[in-house]
């Protein structure tokens, strides 16, 4: 069999070419769990990361709570019921149960592998939270020791297809130079969400690459309207650890209190105030010195910017801003067709933020907890399914020589595209407080931009990666606003100023497909048993 691959140009042979059973794109938690699971059932696995597996992505530089719930029926019931109303009833218990099971099992394995979980006063390990650097350093070690090939600084730029199946991917070797190409029986996309290079902590590598690559080969997306997550950070720093702001009160410049402003329910009041004036915070609800000490030990990275500026966040006022976290703490992503985390394209699986998190969160998440559990569980599910799919095929990767498209110049500056996209997605009065007119005007500008740069390629290799990231962010922004226009109600985090209430007739998911023309269709949700919460 020697069929030319689609998506490739015949002109340049890749500098590095590897054949394997499963290729995992992305080395954050979802990618690591996927790789480990696939390797454990005998697959030969390659993991590529745009940056460095272990430090790249939203988890490594942060720290995260985990939706870790022991298999006690009462505790599980409370855990599942807790977010159903907030998510607009777009989640499904048929997903929550296996995700909770797999997360519980996997976090216990972390403990077996030596993760330094803290102990309470009775000496019992507390496994509800992990520190990002520690967690991801351990994951890299496990991946490496499992015999998995890790290729750092190997951004993927395109999936390879053969007769409608995904059979590998190619990309750039940004430090070594040249290209890489991996032929695989199956591919797991675990490339994260999209935070539009807002400098939210660790998120600048998350530019929606996996959405674009998936959509290019025909995969569908879901929940892209749930993409208006903004995190609170000091105005002078990148540390978007919003959790501790529940101990904060928010103030105007003259130090008068902004009534009702808060990190959870009151975040819209902060956003509303920021439309016209700066907002300041102070962690004055922390109370005792004991609580302050606990906060410091729980989130050391939160305090780094303050300590470096000699600011005491418990007693000093400091200016805050909202940084867009897009789908990283929103819920949109590639649509999964089942618990095996397959997409609609044979051979292509998605996990973590690269996949829509609606099955367990509906239209709302926020940081940590569910997101961490989703990465762990879908990583494992996708890795196992991809390995099984690949191993049942004979010579899955026997398709002759392949090569990577040689970029060609169109004189486009990726930095300008990125700035133009940010100008559409950062403003609170377009993306947070959504209206038909603002969304439509913005989408028209984004569509016009896409006509110019959607298929453009760049000559120089540095440019090439930047252009690809710019295209991915542009595609993501268009998915977001296409879906946001279609949902004429307020549900989950999607807030329509012109439709301020939840509409029972729109209790469905919005599925997107296509790139030049983005089609929208509705999909019914069976949330399983849930309690009607009084909202």
């Amino acid at each position, binding site marked *: 069999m020697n069929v030319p691959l689609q998506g490739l140009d015949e002109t340049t042979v890749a500098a590095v070419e590897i054949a394997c059973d499963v290729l995992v794109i992305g080395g954050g938690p979802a990618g690591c769990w996927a790789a480990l699971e696939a390797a454990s059932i005998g697959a030969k696995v390659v993991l590529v990361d*745009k*940056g*460095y597996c*272990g*430090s*790249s*992505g939203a988890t*490594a*530089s942060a*720290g995260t*709570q985990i939706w870790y719930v022991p298999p006690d029926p009462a505790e599980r019931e409370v855990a599942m019921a807790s977010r159903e109303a907030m998510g607009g009833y777009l989640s499904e218990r048929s997903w929550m149960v296996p995700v909770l099971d797999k997360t519980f099992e996997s976090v216990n394995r972390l403990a077996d592998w030596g993760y*330094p*979980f*803290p*102990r*309470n006063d009775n000496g019992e390990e*507390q496994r*509800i*939270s*992990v*520190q990002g*650097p*520690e967690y991801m350093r351990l994951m890299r070690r496990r991946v490496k020791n499992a015999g998995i090939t890790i290729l*750092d*600084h190997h951004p993927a730029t395109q999936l390879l297809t053969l007769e409608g199946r995904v059979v590998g991917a190619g990309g750039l070797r*940004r*430090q070594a130079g040249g290209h890489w190409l991996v032929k695989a029986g199956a591919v797991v996309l675990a490339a994260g969400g999209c935070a539009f*290079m807002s*400098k939210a*902590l*660790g*998120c*600048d*590598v998350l530019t929606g690459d996996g959405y674009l690559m998936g959509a290019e080969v025909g995969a569908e997306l879901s929940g892209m309207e749930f993409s208006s997550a903004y995190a609170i950070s*000091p105005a*002078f*720093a*990148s*540390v978007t650890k919003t959790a501790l702001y529940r101990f904060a009160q928010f103030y105007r410049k003259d130090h008068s209190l902004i009534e009702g402003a808060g990190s959870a329910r009151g975040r819209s009041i902060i956003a509303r105030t920021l439309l016209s004036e700066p907002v300041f915070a102070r962690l004055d609800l922390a109370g005792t010195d004991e*609580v302050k000490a*606990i*906060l410091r*030990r*729980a*989130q*050391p*990275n939160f*305090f*780094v*910017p303050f*300590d*470096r*500026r000699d600011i005491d966040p418990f007693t000093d006022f400091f200016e805050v801003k909202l940084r867009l976290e897009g789908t990283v703490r929103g819920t949109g992503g590639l649509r999964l067709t089942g618990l095996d985390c397959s997409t609609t394209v044979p051979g292509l699986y998605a996990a973590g933020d690269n996949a829509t998190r609606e099955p367990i969160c509906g239209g709302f998440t926020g940081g940590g907890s569910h997101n961490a559990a989703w990465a762990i569980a879908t990583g494992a599910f996708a890795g196992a399914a991809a390995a099984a799919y690949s191993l049942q095929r004979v010579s899955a990767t026997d398709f002759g020589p392949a090569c990577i498209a040689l970029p060609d110049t169109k004189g486009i500056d990726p930095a300008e595209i990125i700035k133009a996209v940010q100008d559409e997605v950062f403003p609170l009065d377009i993306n947070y407080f959504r209206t038909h007119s603002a969304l439509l005007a913005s989408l028209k500008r984004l569509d016009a931009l896409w006509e110019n740069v959607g298929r453009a390629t760049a000559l120089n290799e540095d440019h090439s990666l930047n252009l690809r990231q710019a295209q991915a962010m542009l595609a993501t922004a268009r998915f977001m606003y296409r879906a946001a226009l279609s949902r004429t109600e307020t549900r989950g985090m999607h807030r329509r100023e012109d439709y301020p209430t939840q509409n029972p007739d729109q209790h469905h998911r919005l599925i997107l497909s296509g790139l030049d023309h983005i089609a929208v269709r509705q999909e019914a949700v069976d949330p399983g048993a849930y309690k009607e919460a009084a909202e």
Partner: protein
Amino acid sequence: MMIEVLDTDTCTDCNLCVQVCPTNVFQAQPEGPPLIKRQDACQTCFMCELYCPVDALYVEPDADAVHGLTVEGVHERQLFGSYRKAIGWHKDTRHRRLIDDHFRLPQ
């Protein structure tokens, strides 16, 4: 902005920062310490500081502007290695790896 200081006297040219930086800010040199080559790509995630085995790097928390810090200034304020110490990755602070007090947070 961002990664501002590389103490070339302390640096051992191990180039670990070149590897771990997720946004490829550093560039290894044929000889001597790496360069802070693409400072504007720094996302201020502090990972290079955590992995630097000799505390030769300092990241200014401001993600959007350069502050012109010097090696001497950062030494004087004893800020080299301070984050690594805080999370227990320094050999003198290993006990701090076990102090994640999330479970003690008042609910």
